[in-house]
């Protein structure tokens, strides 16, 4: 298994206001899979993504990513983990507005040990001709493609996508998902997509349902279709 969560627990508040964002959650994901995590708002999806991405610490339990057990990691080790192994794609792209497309990608390649070639990644994402544009000069879909390029430039072992189509129209969403699929195939990157759009789950190798901080279902998608066939 590439990702293993054992009794992962994260609590917020105390006393009567105590909330379990993750409540003894267990799950496993294979290397190279596209995994879609579904669940209603407040179910713990974002908390789970924070934990997988090394952005936060668990209160109890373990997270094992590849050969790393994140549970005992201090902040500097988590930083190292994010730098080497994880790529993030966010709903609102989070590009640095003062940098061009190519420069936004260089922000990551600059600190990576073995980054991919920026030109190749831009070409793969169909953004080569926009390399000198600034984020504000791009559409939402284009910005999200830049965000994906930025995430994969380091050739991460794990790609985490948080509601990556949440701010996009249907056409752009589909294009972005096609690129995710393409990256997955091209680099065998384990990809975790958090969404509440159930249609996206059809392109996943694995579908996980989460509710009230607990994993309700973790199954292999036997009826997987390609992103281009999705009806969003």
């Amino acid at each position: 298994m590439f990702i293993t969560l054992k009794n992962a627990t994260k609590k917020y508040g105390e006393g009567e206001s105590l909330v379990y964002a993750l409540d003894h959650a267990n799950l496993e994901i294979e290397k190279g899979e596209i995994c879609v995590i579904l669940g209603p708002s407040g179910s713990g999806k974002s908390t789970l993504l924070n934990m997988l991405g090394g952005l936060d610490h668990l209160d109890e339990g373990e997270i094992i990513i590849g050969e790393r057990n994140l549970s005992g990691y201090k902040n500097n080790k988590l930083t190292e983990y994010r730098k080497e192994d994880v790529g993030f794609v966010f709903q609102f792209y989070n590009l640095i507005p003062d940098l061009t497309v190519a420069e936004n990608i260089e922000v990551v390649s600059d600190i990576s040990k073995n980054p991919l070639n920026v030109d190749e990644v831009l070409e793969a994402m169909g953004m080569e001709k926009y390399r000198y544009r600034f984020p504000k000069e791009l559409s939402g879909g284009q910005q999200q493609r830049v965000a994906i390029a930025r995430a994969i430039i380091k050739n991460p072992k794990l790609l985490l996508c948080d509601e990556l189509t949440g701010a996009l129209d249907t056409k752009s969403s589909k294009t972005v998902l096609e690129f995710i699929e393409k990256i997955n195939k091209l680099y065998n990157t384990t990809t975790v997509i958090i969404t509440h759009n159930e249609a996206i789950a059809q392109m996943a190798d694995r579908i996980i349902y989460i509710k009230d901080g607990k994993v309700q279902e973790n199954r292999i998608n036997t009826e997987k279709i390609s992103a281009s066939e999705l009806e969003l």
Partner: protein
Amino acid sequence: MKLNKRYSRSIKSNLSFYVSSTILTIMTLFLFFMMNIAGSAIWEFGDDFFETQNLEHANFSTYLPISETEIEELEEDYSVNLEAQYYSNIETDGVTARVFKKTNEINLYSVTEGEDVALNDEIIISEGYAVFNKISLGDQITIGDKAYTITGFFQRPDYLYMLQNEGDSYKNVTTFYLAYVTDEEYEHIGGDNCMYLVRYEEDNQADFRKAINENYYMRTYISEQENMRIDMVKMQAEMFTAISYIILAVMPLSVVVLVIIVINRKVKSEQRLIGTLTALGYKKGKLMHHYAGFAMIPGLFGGIFAVIFAMIFAQPFGEVCLADYEPMRIECQVAPVAAVIAIVVPTVMYVLAAIYSVNKLLKKDTVLLLNGNSEQGERNYKNMLVKNKISFRIKYAMRSLIGNPSRTFVVLLGIFLGSYIALLGYSFLDTMDNTKQNMVDKMGSFEYQYVLNELVEGDPYGGEPVIMSTMENREGEQFSIIGTTDSNPYLQLKDVEGNNVSLDDGYYITSIMAMLQDVQTGDKMILCNQLTLEEFEITVAGIIDNDMQNALFSNRENVANIMSIDEDISNVVMSDVELDIPDSKIIQTIKKADAKEQFQNMSNQMNVMVYFLIGIGAIICVASIYVAVNMLVSENRSNISMLKVLGYKDNQINQIVLNVNHILLPIGFLLSIPLVFASTNWFMVFLADFIGVLPKAYVAPMSFIYTAVLVCCSYFGSLFLLRRKVSKVDMVESLKGNRE
């Protein structure tokens, strides 16, 4: 307005901005207050003390004595107050007591502690000497062979700066003091020195002086303005006042601009909220009112605290600055009007800045505000270096600097202000020191200048004899007139272009005299003989490069003619070695070392003020840089958060975000240098009116280094404090971010 509930929460979350802006406001106002209050207090004390104690308008001595009856006649004829001042200098065990006979009308003494003398074995002494030597009331002091009991301490208006001799350059409270005994005891002591004190009631000084000279032969005449014992007090007051206005011209204005820019940026950073509130139906007036509330905090609190601190520290500061004078009872108080202005002006300025910013924002489309895109359509510099292959870090830094001019300006201003204040302090000290070391030599290459009390023919004592006298212009401003030859080895006079001049060509004035009297080559001047008031008209042949002496040079013939003496006669001898001239033949010995000592003393007098300036400069530097870089961090929270998510370590983020301003450090420092030179020169021109010397602004290389180190420490200290702020930025902000 419910919206105002945000105040406490918002202020709490931006506490560092409010604290540092308030500190900046406090410091600049405080600095101005300290200097201005000290200056005003000295003025007020001086004016009051001089008035109540009937300070002389001039003192003089004559070759023939003036009797009491003649004094009364002169008073009546010329509407003056005239009084003889008898005194005796008595040296006992190396300490000189100048015992005065009491005067009744002019230069009245004031008993500041204890009581006046009543018995013949009682004495009152000058307070500065008592304080310095820790003498208490009731102690015994011996003059000659008689011991007196000290019943009181006093001050005289013409001895607030305790010079033993008029030609001395520095106070003496270690081996010299003034004293009064009873009239009966004074007769017993037998004072044989006499000078005359005069107060004019009408504008008839010239007639009076001419009459004195015609009937009693004037020996010396020193006006109140030329008496350093009196004028030093006025100079000190003027010095503080002048510095306060230099500070006023640069500091509060700059700080207000700085804080206004920051407020403007803060309002802009809330454009989404402003857009939302507008969409919810909030009117412009309510929003302006709301943001004005935030903006008034640094102005209001800054003004109030500056006034409070000034009220607490003005008195001790003023007293420390006057340590070289007799203990003056100055009252350093903040004038109510000044306090109100200090509170109201910055507050109003900050509030207006907030109102202006909100108003400007509300002219934009609400949709743009809601999306945080109020700057859409504005010119930006992002496109610079787009196709250049240099690192994204350099591009980011340059766009951050050039694309955010107001933020860059704030950082630059902070560095500039800190450098300016600290360097200004060093500049004052270095200028005095440089004058002492180098400019004094412009006076000539002699080491000794003997002023004789006789006229000599030839050179009976060796050295180089010259003719010298003190003259006045019609306004009573005094200057020296020196008659010598072109071959005088101690005076190789050059004009301002560096060419040698020949005194046979006419009358040359020094560059300082040209400035003080606003006279140029070819102008005509009226010279008045200080003792006889006889007038001469001369034409200025040229300007000599000499900012050390307020003097006019010509050949012996011309000067002898003005002084009505033979041109072979001299009254001053210059020499590079000490000459063997009997003491009885010398009125005064001027050593070049004494002139240097004078500048050392002036430098010493400035020490307190200078170190105060340097300290305040450091605080202003830290506070303003903290405000500016704090703004930088606040405006880059999303980027910082994102960089953290991407795996950047805190120190790497600091390099990208915080260190972009490093380039501004040398720029701000370098920009302050010309203004420091301009300010110092302006101050020295002002000072030249009092001391008759125009020191040239100079900053020693070490002072540049000290200031640079100070500013660097302040700058990097501020960045160090803000690194915590960077490390506190939460990564999750990126995940929740809502940017387009």
